[in-house]
């Protein structure tokens, strides 16, 4: 190799390093460092000696084993229940045409993007103390696993409808018809043609739901009670209430391992999903319902959707107004007990944090995406791609816990600075930014950049003139995602938000945890505010996404 090509090779490396330096440093300090801190805290004593046996003994303790077992079975039960309830809905939304279908499909997506604390509060309003069902029939489920399972179905319903239903709508009906013409009955045709095609999507949805419910925190924190405690809530309880950081660290390690296992299985199923399917325009596959069976199915799905998806938020809104505007007014008053400030302050805190977190996530995620999109990205750069996704899988609670124990001593003592919360939220938001930007950046034809360069554009201007106009929309969408994520973020924030600066979800959870009708009412009112803010952010997002005509 001659000097010239070595030189150009070095130049490429330098450009890549320049782009990667900031994201890599960010992840080293705010992800790897806390993770290492957790490992050390869990497995090493004060004297610096490794205590593996003790960690193993911790896991053997009955109350810890109970938490592990409950976490596992509630996740399995939630997944199974969601599939049972949502698969018929996936079919109905994919294949049946009925008035209001588009609206309803949008409605069922809402719970998935609602902050988990709001979902918890909504179910509390339905099945909790003096909730709707309590008033009507004297039925209460709060503090039981039943409420948790219902809320999990509420949140994850959309996962099935979107992933499975989305594919179902695009499967060519001609395939089933071909099987029918070859002598298969309606059911046999479905079982032998459609089901195998849907299988991988169902498996992927199930894995996602399992992961979400296994690491569920906000819902369990709000709806759970004694004996209804998952790994996540237990880590929080050990840290915040019992100051038992060692057990919390050991539990975090279990969480790491479990999440890693699930993600590995997920990666494996994704690789296997490469089967080529004949896909068609979804608009061509939907038919009006025919026969009693299909009408019954449609009616059932509509009923379930109404009760499970629409009712809880509606009751939440109704409860928040049960004292007129009283609960909302009370939010503006300082009571000095729950917080050092009036609850309504949480709205501004949340917005400020969300703006800061969005900015951080955009810078870090944008740089990372730009580095990953380079055509000369090598293997280690692609490895970084996987690393970027980790905060998504690793539970928010572990992120918060890691921040708490890692960033509290010099040279990095951020405990008392406001930036800690946005940093944690940005960590959770970065994967969304990268996932949104990367495909768009990769789709920019490299020769367009060359065309601009030959016309006299410097590398910076090439980016501004060619890349930016094409990714502007993706950038806005990524910003919306990061904003919504950090608005609703609860698991990490609850560890590190200061009492005088609570965020909305933290304030809601705190109010719910305290006795008295006023606190309860305020929690409902604050939840509604959070719901409205999130809905507004997402509405803007959908508009940006949907409006594809007349680009720029």
């Amino acid at each position: 190799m001659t000097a010239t090509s070595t030189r150009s090779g070095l130049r490429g490396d330098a450009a890549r390093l320049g782009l990667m330096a900031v994201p890599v440093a960010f992840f080293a300090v705010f992800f790897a460092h806390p993770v290492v801190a957790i490992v050390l805290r869990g497995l090493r004593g004060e004297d610096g000696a490794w205590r593996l046996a003790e960690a193993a003994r911790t896991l053997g303790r009955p109350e810890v084993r109970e938490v592990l077992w409950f976490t596992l079975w509630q996740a399995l039960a939630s997944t199974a229940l969601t599939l049972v309830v949502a698969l018929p809905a996936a079919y109905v939304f994919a294949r049946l045409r009925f008035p209001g279908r588009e609206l309803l499909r949008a409605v069922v997506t809402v719970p998935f993007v609602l902050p988990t604390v709001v979902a918890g509060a909504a179910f509390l309003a339905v099945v909790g103390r003096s909730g709707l069902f309590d008033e009507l029939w004297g039925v209460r489920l709060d503090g039981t696993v039943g409420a948790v399972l219902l809320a999990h179905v509420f949140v994850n319903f959309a996962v099935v409808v979107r992933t499975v239903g989305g594919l179902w709508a695009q499967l060519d009906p001609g395939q089933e018809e071909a099987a029918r013409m070859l002598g298969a009955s309606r059911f046999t045709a479905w079982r032998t043609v459609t089901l195998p095609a849907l299988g991988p999507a169902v498996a992927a949805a199930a894995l996602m739901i399992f992961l979400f419910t296994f690491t569920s925190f906000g819902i369990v924190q709000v709806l759970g009670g004694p004996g209804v405690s998952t790994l996540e809530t237990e880590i929080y309880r050990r840290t915040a209430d019992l100051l038992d950081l060692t057990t919390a660290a050991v539990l975090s390690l279990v969480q790491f391992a479990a999440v890693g296992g699930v993600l590995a299985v997920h990666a494996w199923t994704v690789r296997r999903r490469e089967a080529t399917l004949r896909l068609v325009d979804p608009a061509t596959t939907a038919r009006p319902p025919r026969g009693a069976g299909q009408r019954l199915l449609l009616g059932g799905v509509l009923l379930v959707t109404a009760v499970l998806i629409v009712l809880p938020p509606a009751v939440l809104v109704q409860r928040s107004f049960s004292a007129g505007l009283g609960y909302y007014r009370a939010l503006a008053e300082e009571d000095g007990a729950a917080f050092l400030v009036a609850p309504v302050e949480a709205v501004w805190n949340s917005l400020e944090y969300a703006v800061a977190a969005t900015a951080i996530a955009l810078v870090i995620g944008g740089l990372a995406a730009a580095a990953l999109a380079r055509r000369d990205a090598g293997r280690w750069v692609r490895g970084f791609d996987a690393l970027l996704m980790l905060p998504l899988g690793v539970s928010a609670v572990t992120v918060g816990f890691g921040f708490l124990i890692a960033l509290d001593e010099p040279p990095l003592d951020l405990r008392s600075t406001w930036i800690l919360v946005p940093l944690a939220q940005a960590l959770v938001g970065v994967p969304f930014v990268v996932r949104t930007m990367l495909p768009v950046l990769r789709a920019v034809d490299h020769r367009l950049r060359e065309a601009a360069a030959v016309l006299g554009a410097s590398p910076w201007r090439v980016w501004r003139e060619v890349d930016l106009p094409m990714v502007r929309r993706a950038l806005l969408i990524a910003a919306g995602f990061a904003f919504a994520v950090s608005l609703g973020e609860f698991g990490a924030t609850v560890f590190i938000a200061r009492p005088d600066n609570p965020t909305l979800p933290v304030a809601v959870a705190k109010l719910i945890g305290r006795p008295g009708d006023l606190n309860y009412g305020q929690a409902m009112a604050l939840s509604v505010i959070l719901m409205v803010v999130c809905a507004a952010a997402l509405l803007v997002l959908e508009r940006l996404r949907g409006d594809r005509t007349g680009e720029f």
Partner: protein
Amino acid sequence: MLLSLEGATVRFGGRAALDAVDLAVAEHEIVCVLGPSGSGKSTLLRAVAGLQAVDAGQVLLDGRDQARVPAHRRGVGLMFQDHQLFPQRDVAGNVAFGLRMRGAGREEQAERVRELLELVGLPDAGRRGVGTLSGGEQQRVALARALAPRPRLLMLDEPLGQLDRTLRERLVVELRDLFGRLGTTVLAVTHDQGEAFALADRVVVMRDGRVAQSGSPLEVWQRPADAFVARFLGFENVVRATVAGTVADTPWGKVPVPGGSAQGERNLLVRPSGVRLAAGSGGGGLRCVVAARTFQGAQVSLRLRPEGEAPELEAVCPLRDAPAPGETVGVLFDAGEIAVLG
């Protein structure tokens, strides 16, 4: 010389896409690089544009080495094979792009855009989206965009490659006309000989990253440098021959060659027009069976199969004299249409 390449070499892995290429383009000259795909033509353009670093040798513009000059400072224009118009800008935005990069004022941009759209025959297309353009219109806009900043050298990568035949034949004349009027220095690459010969002052034939021949269209056409160039130009009657004086000994028998031809063991080209059909089957000469015939307007292309082991011959004859397939004809050779190659 406006552009000179001295021993320019580009390697991809172990393979040399450009292998010690020497090439010079004078001001106002139109040079066409001709070669089959994979011969290194596009790499040549990319090396000159600065999109591809050379591994050895030099690229000089106005005598200055360009090794450390990035693409956007070279002041050359490149029209991409598939145009690469910016999809998010309208036609005027595309044409004005290079002017904006050079910091031209708004007035100047608007004036130049109008001038160029006029020049390429799309005077009212400024506000149109590039997605609404036909292939030919895109090609014109790409040309206007490349010309707008007045590059000292304009490079064209398969300029007409994506267009249909009739449009291509019309545009190539228009282009030649336009470049002549503007005095543009042009370096174009193409795999189409017709395009190259119609456009160029000078043709450079490339093979496997090397220059196989360079000369005026007439020179290259009349005296292909070697068997490769002859075959690439579409000639099929190329055989080994032993030349002695004005006679060559070939598989087709004794063939006359022009005086002053190189002597000894050589490749010999017989142009189809140099294969004369003797009247009737008793006319003497090499006896051949007509294997196939193709009508080409006023004349007919014939494929003749000589008796014995000799390779087939390609010939042309006027429409009215065309023999039918299966007929036997006698063949004579015309020394004026025969060339002894290097």
